[in-house]
């Protein structure tokens, strides 16, 4: 790692090369007066002033900050955040699995499976997820009894618990979006890759598993991460099917304790904590699957910190341009 920083322009590596004599005389470095960007100073000042006004407004607002602090780690709130996390993860897992199946169906040469997949995606992308949640919630109105012959029979209201409504609504909707993401990923892999793999004697299944999918993942993972972060937030809609996730549990405290806005702040804080944590996870996952597509991987933030520290200690000897 360190030799990268020891190389100084015009250092020993150049001296031992028998190049023309002109290069051995160090060129005079240009010392010009930089362009003054007055516009940047003005726009910066304006933005800071507006920001200050916003902070001031909040300081004058009738906000019980104590309530935010007290309820942030309240058991009910934590349980709600836990349920939000659980329903999001579960819906995402089922959504991804079903999405992969739909993508493969969509790309299949069988016209029936391809058409059915298209129909599914058309319906679930074409209707709002809120409406879909309510459809599951009210399913008992048209089908009072769930009857799968010889396998299962029960009252619909017993089957469609708030949890089931939330899971079905979110997962089935997500599957439609994931199907399109997976399909785009598979189609992004160059045809030459499939040909090379076939030419080596690999079957279609092996080609898909060993050659196409690993490369497709590089395209699939970034939007999937976005989908998951969206899911964390969209899960607040399951409020409507009376599932006690974060928004519902905070709102209930809010309406009984007359701290409506304060509890929405609490909810917002937990949402932003969860999305931030997963954004970091996504960064490292994307980095892992970028192998081979970049000549050298960009440094992680932590590696960058270490390099900056190293460059500080090297500064006296080296010519680090920061």
């Amino acid at each position, binding site marked *: 790692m360190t030799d990268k920083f020891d190389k100084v322009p015009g250092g020993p590596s150049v001296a031992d090369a028998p190049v023309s004599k002109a290069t051995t005389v160090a060129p005079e470095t240009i010392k010009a007066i930089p362009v003054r960007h007055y516009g940047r100073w003005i726009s910066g000042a304006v933005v800071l002033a507006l920001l200050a006004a916003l902070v001031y407004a909040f300081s004058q607002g009738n906000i019980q900050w104590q309530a935010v602090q007290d309820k942030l780690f309240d058991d009910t709130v934590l349980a709600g955040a836990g349920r939000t996390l659980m329903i999001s993860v579960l819906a995402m897992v089922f959504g991804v699995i079903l999405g992969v199946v739909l993508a493969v169906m969509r790309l299949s040469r069988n016209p029936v499976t391809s058409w059915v997949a298209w129909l599914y995606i058309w319906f679930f992308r074409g209707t709002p997820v809120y409406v879909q949640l309510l459809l599951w919630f009210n399913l008992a109105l048209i089908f009072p009894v769930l009857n799968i012959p010889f396998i299962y029979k029960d009252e619909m209201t017993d089957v469609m618990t708030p949890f089931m409504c939330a899971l079905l609504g979110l997962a089935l909707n997500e599957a439609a979006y994931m199907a399109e993401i997976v399909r785009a990923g598979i189609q992004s892999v160059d045809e030459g890759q499939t040909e*090379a793999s076939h*030419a080596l*004697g690999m079957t279609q299944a092996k080609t898909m598993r060993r050659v196409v999918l690993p490369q497709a993942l590089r395209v699939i993972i970034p939007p999937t991460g976005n989908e998951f972060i969206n899911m964390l937030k969209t899960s607040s809609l399951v409020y409507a099917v009376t599932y006690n996730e974060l928004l519902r549990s905070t709102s209930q405290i809010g309406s009984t304790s007359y701290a409506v806005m304060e509890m929405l702040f609490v909810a917002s804080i937990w949402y932003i904590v969860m999305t931030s944590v997963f954004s970091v996870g996504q960064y490292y996952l994307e980095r892992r699957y970028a192998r081979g597509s970049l000549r050298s991987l960009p440094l992680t933030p932590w590696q960058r910190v270490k390099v900056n520290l190293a460059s500080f200690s090297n500064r006296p000897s080296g010519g680090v341009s920061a």
Partner: protein
Amino acid sequence: MTAMVKAEGVHKSFGAAHILKGIDLEVAPREVFCLIGPSGSGKSTFLRCINHLEQINAGRLYVDGDLVGYRQKGDKLYELKDSEVALQRRDIGMVFQRFNLFPHMTALENVIEAPIQVKGETRAVARARAERLLDRVGLSDKAGNYPSQLSGGQQQRVAIARALAMEPKLMLFDEPTSALDPELVGDVLDVMRGLAEEGMTMIVVTHEMGFAREVGDALVFMDDGVVVESGHPRDVLTNPQHDRTKSFLSKVL
């Protein structure tokens, strides 16, 4: 002695485009067989038919005595299953114009992938051979590099090593040097020359007339989906009989 490759009246169309219009030829074992011709003449398509990357529409194509892509029972042809086609392709190595290395694997992983996945070799066995092959194409120090970290010429040599790792009895080269910078062509041709000297049967679609003349045992000039002229490379290249051959050679030589 059975021909390594035998084509009888091979036709191939893509929709309305009639690309191959009855190709008849034979490639003997240990022969270096060069295919030349203008672009669009069908030479690459013919090469791709040999390992069934393209299905032929008429005629018969045999590799080492076996019908490619079909099984014949009486006078009926049955399409082979995916796994049976894969089995046929094991013995036919192919090198592409655009290399087509697997970008998510290192050079070494590219070379050991098929022996492990297709032949079920152990990692150790595959690795030992892969290291030998990479050494042979002059890239033993690049085993851990990803394709994006290699030059075009290096990538193509890894691609040759990858094909050789399956120990094929026939190697197909589809314009292996056309996508390379001129100064990198030599290294790839040297590797191919070495292979020819060892007696590998090779079919080479190429624009490298020098290579065809020095290394080739047989040469075919194709134009507009038919074989126009064939013979020993030296004869065809220095003393072409057909007008179309003459006009093509006058442009490329």
